[in-house]
């Protein structure tokens, strides 16, 4: 049976997941906070977040669905430190839950982690629950 969550309920539970996974205060978990720069997430924390989200919402998150990592490993997707049009298209297609407004102005590879904000996670979970 799929449990129905409002967006506020999803947000509240995602906030709890991030507080526990990253050891941050509730005040730090703003909607636009980035997981890496603002909340200090390291690579293993992304897997921790995935596992906690799976348990919290009773969902299955396939490898690369929430945090696609293979796109940046393709040399055709990067040129001079920027995402190529092909790479950017792939990234946008893989991350429908992320906001690309600022990123598209200068699609620097080094700024990819900034796509992963608290809102990105909430959007992903909402989409996932609606599709279930």
């Amino acid at each position, binding site marked *: 049976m799929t449990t129905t969550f409002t967006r506020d309920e999803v947000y509240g539970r995602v906030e709890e997941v991030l507080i*526990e*996974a990253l050891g941050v205060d509730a005040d730090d978990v703003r909607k636009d906070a980035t997981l890496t720069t603002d909340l200090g997430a390291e690579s*293993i*924390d992304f*897997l*921790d977040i995935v*596992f906690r989200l*799976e*348990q919290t919402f009773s969902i299955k998150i396939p*490898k690369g669905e929430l945090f696609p990592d293979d796109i940046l490993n393709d040399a055709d997707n990067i040129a001079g430190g920027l995402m190529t049009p092909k790479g950017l298209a792939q990234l946008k297609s893989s991350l429908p839950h992320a906001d690309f407004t600022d990123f598209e102005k200068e699609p620097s590879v080094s700024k990819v982690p900034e796509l992963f904000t608290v809102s990105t996670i909430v959007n992903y979970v909402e989409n996932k629950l609606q599709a279930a």
Partner: protein
Amino acid sequence: MRWIWIDRFTEFVSGSHGTAIKNVTLAEEQLAAHLPGYPVMPPSLVIEGMAQTAGILVGEARGFKENVILAKIRAAQFTDYAVPGDQLRYEARIESIDERAAATAGEVFLNDRSIGNVNLMFSHVNQSAVASGLPAHNFVFTDQFMRLFEAIQRADDSGSTKP
């Protein structure tokens, strides 16, 4: 001193949960060195005991194919500490596991009384991804760890804990 912080598995359910015990003795060096004159089991080594319990559980769940590396202490809290003569018991359970990593939840008991929790994350590192300078063979599940696993299998099969 050998880097092994559990004495014996008392329960092992593949892919699910396992329990190991550790008897704390005054002959152990860490009891003299941690707080000189006040022999207590360092909490960091209690965490290591849980990591070895849970790590073998995680490794076995995937056929000991990969090195299982402690990657993150998700939580560790204790309300008491062990002294010489005490027995620690580590109960570990796999919460999540896939080809990349595993998360475990664990409870620590002191002489059958719960004294805390240690929740961990492990990374799976297969041999092709091992960094240069590290051994080509599985360097986590060495003979001494495999003997622990084999002992509980033997106990389950024949009731004997002796090699």
